[in-house]
């Protein structure tokens, strides 16, 4: 990592620190305070709604990023694992009568265990076969919730829960939900950032880059692949349980193959194998969504009516497809890489090279 001139690491703790210099600590502090005060600064329900979904998706994307971006095990069923977490949370609350705060880690664990179950083929499968296995997982899981035991999972109508409570705070407004989701998102991001630098994270990268070499280096392939599946799906489960609290209803059609593909698209746009990239990707895609929503009505005033209705139906698909195609061709390393380039430029300005 590049540092300003004159700053040296004098002990190991400094060498491995993420936050190195005093200005960095200050910016981090300001950022956290900003996050804390955000609902007060922008008391806009719509904006807070967007930010809340961004943070929930960020947690889920971190999981997928660890699984796909770091460990290289492509999962096209990540939304289904989110669904497992959401359903686990809802059923623990309704039938187990368990407190929501205990439900969050519990649903993460459930999703993680289901993830291990569907990660088992990863020992023998690679590439497209693994993708297909995860797509199969996607269909099997959503069909399970749709048709199995309608008296528990309520089929297509979905399960609904009461608003989450802590003491006498009821998490039913966007602002309160923000304070429920934000700390968890920050903790999960911090954990992800540190996990990928740990022994386990480096093992994941080794498996992704060359599994044969990784095994020769003494990495237990099967164990680490399953761990990657567990952690990735744990994240998805946490995100799912937050989603339950956010929407207060869980339906199978919230977690379709399309959503899984969106998650994959997000990590491509943001940058695979980068925690920052996951965050940037979610924000970018969400803003793109809003942009399309904003653009469509204005398009319909210009174009004839029957054509406009077709456009509005297809716009989201086309824009998302186009953006992913462009990113794959022009910047396969995603927004995170662009951000790094920008930082380098800024640091060396007005020189081209440092």
């Amino acid at each position, binding site marked *: 990592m590049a540092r300003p001139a004159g700053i040296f690491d004098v002990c190991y703790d400094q060498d491995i620190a993420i936050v190195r210099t005093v200005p960095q600590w200050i910016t981090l502090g300001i950022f956290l305070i900003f996050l804390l005060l955000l609902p007060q600064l922008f008391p806009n329900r719509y904006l807070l709604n967007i930010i809340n979904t961004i943070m929930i998706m960020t947690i889920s994307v971190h999981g997928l990023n660890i699984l796909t971006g770091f460990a290289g095990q*492509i999962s096209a069923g990540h939304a289904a694992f989110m669904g497992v977490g959401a359903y686990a949370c809802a059923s623990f609350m309704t039938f187990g009568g368990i407190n929501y705060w205990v439900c969050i880690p519990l649903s993460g664990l459930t999703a993680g265990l289901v993830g291990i179950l569907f990660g088992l083929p990863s020992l*023998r*499968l690679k590439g*497209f*076969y693994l993708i297909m296995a995860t797509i199969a997982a996607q*269909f099997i899981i959503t069909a399970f919730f749709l048709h199995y035991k309608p008296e528990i999972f309520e089929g297509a109508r979905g399960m609904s829960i009461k608003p989450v409570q802590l003491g006498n705070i009821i998490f039913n407004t966007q602002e309160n939900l923000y304070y429920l989701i934000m700390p968890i998102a920050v903790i999960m991001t911090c954990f992800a950032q540190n996990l990928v630098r740990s022994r386990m994270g480096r093992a994941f990268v080794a498996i992704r880059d060359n599994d044969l070499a990784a095994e020769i280096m003494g990495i237990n*392939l099967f164990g680490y692949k399953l761990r990657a599946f567990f952690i990735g799906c744990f994240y998805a489960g946490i995100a799912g349980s937050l989603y339950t609290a956010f929407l207060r209803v869980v339906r199978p059609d919230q977690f379709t*193959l399309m959503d899984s593909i969106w998650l994959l698209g997000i990590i491509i746009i943001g940058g695979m194998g980068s925690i920052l990239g996951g965050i940037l990707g979610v924000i970018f895609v969400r803003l793109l969504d809003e942009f399309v929503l904003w653009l469509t009505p204005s398009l319909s005033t210009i174009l004839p009516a029957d054509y406009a209705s077709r456009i509005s139906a*297809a716009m989201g698909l*086309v824009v998302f497809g186009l953006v992913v195609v462009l990113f794959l061709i022009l910047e396969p390393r995603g927004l995170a890489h662009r951000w790094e380039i920008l930082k380098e430029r800024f640091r060396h300005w007005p020189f081209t090279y440092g």
Partner: protein
Amino acid sequence: MIALGIVIIFKSTKVFNLAQGHIMMVAVLLGATTSHKFGIIGGMIITIAVMACIALLLERLTLRPLIGQPLVAAFLMTIALSYLLEGGALMVWGEGLYNYPQLFPSEAIMISTIAIEQETLWAFVAVAVIFTAFVLFYRKVLLGKAMRATAEDHRISQSMGIRVTHIFSISWVIAAILAYVASLFLGSISGGHYLNSQLGLKAFPAVLVGGLDSITGAIMGGFIVGLLESFVTGYLSGEMGNVVPFIVLLIVILIKPYGLFGLVRIERI
């Protein structure tokens, strides 16, 4: 038939084309509209030409730059393409259902007591003809041999004087034409609609059960999955019919990762 298209692309380019169903959907819609304008034969010719052009463009513009990129990139590219195609089709054709001209006589043929729709019969004939054609093509024709060589090893076939990039384009065009043939039957059975693309999803289990690089496997996998699905839909419930192919897929690839008819590659995972 979709399965066959996927296999042909995968065999030579090692790209699993998830957009095959969507290509077929475009073919159905295009075929339906052009055949109303230019008559059945004219519509066929125009559609085939346009499909070939679309396939060429897709391959050249989107997948060529990705050669050498990791597998996720190509995988996501085909998905993004499928979104683009679906969205584009929605924009051009809207959500309406387009009637296909009557290609086959509508009265069913009776074989003793079983009534068989003529379309189904023709589809069987077409599959048989295409299958034999491909077997012959891959065995006898120089181009077919070149495609097999490319499937074996890109670098070596390149150094033997085969233009690998051309082979890629050709396989995409063949797959697009196959998609068109499939669309003929689909169109005459159910008409053109943008949701036809969902059928592509059903082809994946078929391909993987049969084995990704085997033409026999694609056809057998298609039969196995199709039969299973209609049995389950008939005897258990309609909803299960959509899931069972995937359960079968999961079991098959757990036991035989390369599919029932696939080429077994010795590779430690």
